[in-house]
């Protein structure tokens, strides 16, 4: 599976939706019997439309333009531009079927195929397969996904182009939180024979925010860590630090967030604190009518 289709968009959209619910939610009821009620509220959802990448001196390097369907819900094309050309250097075209991403096709600047993903889903609409083809249309790799009874992803199997199993990744979750969802706490990486090759441990703060991710080798030694920095007791991270095995800082990304929680700017620095570049994000705001359930 690709790392994230529109990571910031997905993140801020989810946050915005929930934050909006929070702001319009009812207050605690009295001791009288509570009655389930519904109401429709309009929430503002920031939709990422442009990502611009800059060098440390402020010179524009390139940009990515995101295009959606008429509802601004489904990403249908992602065009990557270089500063010196009007035509995109790369186009990624997505096809959706019944609200599910069916395939992603990446083309180079000459319109030639670079890469293709074909996705499969189960009856519940959960991703169960991702087949990757190369520029020749040949299978390059594939993945399958399984889920536990609670609907959490439990396993990812990675295969090579010939269909030979290469790696198994298992996911373990902690006890459900107040929201009812179980946080991912451990990712176990295994080879094709099922032998552990390493783990990733995730830890959270008292309100369930991801604090750090530690990458451990098979022998349990730390290989690297990613640490999230928060400016306040609630809200999005303001920075992500990557530390080497010895604990020294390898890199840091600092975030500037907008009113709706969306990331407006991400600045990358190296271990010495030198800025390596930054990205700026532009959004349009979509208004969704959402049915809100509450009790009073």
């Amino acid at each position: 599976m690709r790392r994230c289709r529109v990571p910031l968009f997905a993140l801020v959209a989810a946050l915005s939706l929930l934050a909006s619910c929070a702001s319009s939610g009812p207050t605690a009821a009295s001791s009288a019997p509570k009655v389930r009620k519904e109401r429709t509220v309009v929430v503002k959802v920031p939709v990422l439309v442009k990502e611009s990448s800059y060098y440390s001196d402020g010179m524009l390097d390139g940009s990515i333009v995101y295009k959606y369907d008429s509802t601004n819900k489904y990403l249908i094309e992602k065009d990557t531009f270089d500063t010196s050309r009007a035509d995109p250097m790369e186009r990624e075209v997505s096809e959706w079927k019944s609200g599910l991403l069916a395939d992603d096709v990446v083309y180079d600047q000459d319109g030639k195929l670079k890469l293709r993903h074909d996705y499969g889903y189960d009856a519940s609409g959960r991703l169960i397969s991702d087949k990757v083809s190369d520029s020749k249309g040949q299978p390059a790799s594939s993945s399958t996904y399984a889920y536990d009874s609670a609907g959490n992803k439990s396993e990812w199997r990675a295969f090579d182009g010939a269909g030979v199993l290469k790696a198994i990744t298992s996911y373990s979750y902690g006890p459900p939180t107040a929201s009812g969802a179980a946080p991912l706490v451990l990712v176990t990486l295994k080879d094709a024979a099922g032998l552990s090759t390493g783990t990733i441990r995730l830890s959270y703060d008292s309100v369930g925010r991801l604090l750090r991710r530690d990458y451990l080798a098979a022998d349990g030694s730390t290989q690297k860590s990613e640490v999230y920095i928060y400016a306040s007791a609630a809200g999005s991270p303001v920075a992500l630090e990557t530390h080497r095995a010895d604990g020294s800082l390898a890199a840091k990304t600092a975030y500037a967030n907008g009113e709706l929680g969306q990331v407006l700017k991400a600045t990358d620095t190296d271990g010495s604190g030198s800025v390596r570049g930054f990205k700026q994000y532009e959004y349009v705001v979509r208004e969704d009518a959402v049915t809100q359930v509450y009790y009073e």
Partner: protein
Amino acid sequence: MKRLVSLLALFVLGATLALADETAEVYRRLYLEAQGLSQKYAAALNLVQLQDPSVAPILSDALTELINTQKDYSRPSDQELYGRTLRIVAQALGDYKYIDAAPSLWDAVQQVPDPLVKAEALIALGKMRALDYAERISLLLRDLDFKPTDDPDFGEKVAYGAILSLEKLKDVRGFSPVFFASVGWYSQRVRQQAASALPNIVDDPTDPIAQIIRNEPADRKVLALNAEINSKAPDDHKIQTAILALNLGHEKVPADKIDARTFSELRKSALRALITLRAQGDAPVPGCQNSYAKGYDDEERLLALAALGVNGTDPAAGALRDIILQLNTDQQSGVTDDTRNRMARAAIENAAQTKNKLVRPVLMSVAANDKWSGNIILAAQNALKAIP
């Protein structure tokens, strides 16, 4: 309820951020364990498509290893896949601006025979702004510019990569080779790419353009001057370059009629620049005088008069005065034709532009010379009104 929703929001945050990174870790390990070229390619493709800068170190190591083991992939059946693997790795390293990979990318430029790999490595060096390599890339393109390579397609591809690289590097050393690429032996696509890259390489290309104007044939001088005029150089630098071109345009002896016409184009471009930029001072005046006196055609002579007019300083006004005086004297002695009349009118109107008192006496002489047509006399009278 608020707390509940807040927790929900935070969980979504955590889950979203947590989702991705085992993917990079898994593919990183798969690359390390990959045996054979096809496995390496598939693993590299997986790593690259993650679009995750954290995989840059492993891609850099992969690039180094692939270059060092190049001889293992010498079979024709391997070469295409080998090139493809190197290209996707190089492109990703450029996208991630992973400067630590610059030495390996330069090794790819030098050691891998596939021109597409060379080009991709060059582009990556540009994207990461590996300025330590600007000189080397400039020299590489300069050498390609000299003459077509044995396999022109090979040279085209490498040159294209070098042009894109130098455009990104934005180093003044890259200007000249890209300029010569824009007028070189390459296909239109490469030449156009070079031409469009030129304004992006350096804001002020005055120094390299002055070198080109001094040393290159007339047609290239014209293109170089136009590049300077269209650049973001300060106006005083553009003026300085235009004066240089104008003066050289007079000094050089044309080899034939075509050369003479090209030199006149150079001078006209320079004069237009002087007019547009409202160049003042002594320096442009001799060139303008020469263009008026020995201009290739009337257009050049009229441009020279206009350049003197916008100049307006004493030397420029003095030159216009002398020109009008000569025309007036000729008129009085009966030497007249349409061209002289056109020049006289233009000289008078440009003298008015100077608003310089130096031209008043000669304008009064023209106004008082009833051998001129009414239009010329009226122009002189109007000019006198314009001068304080």
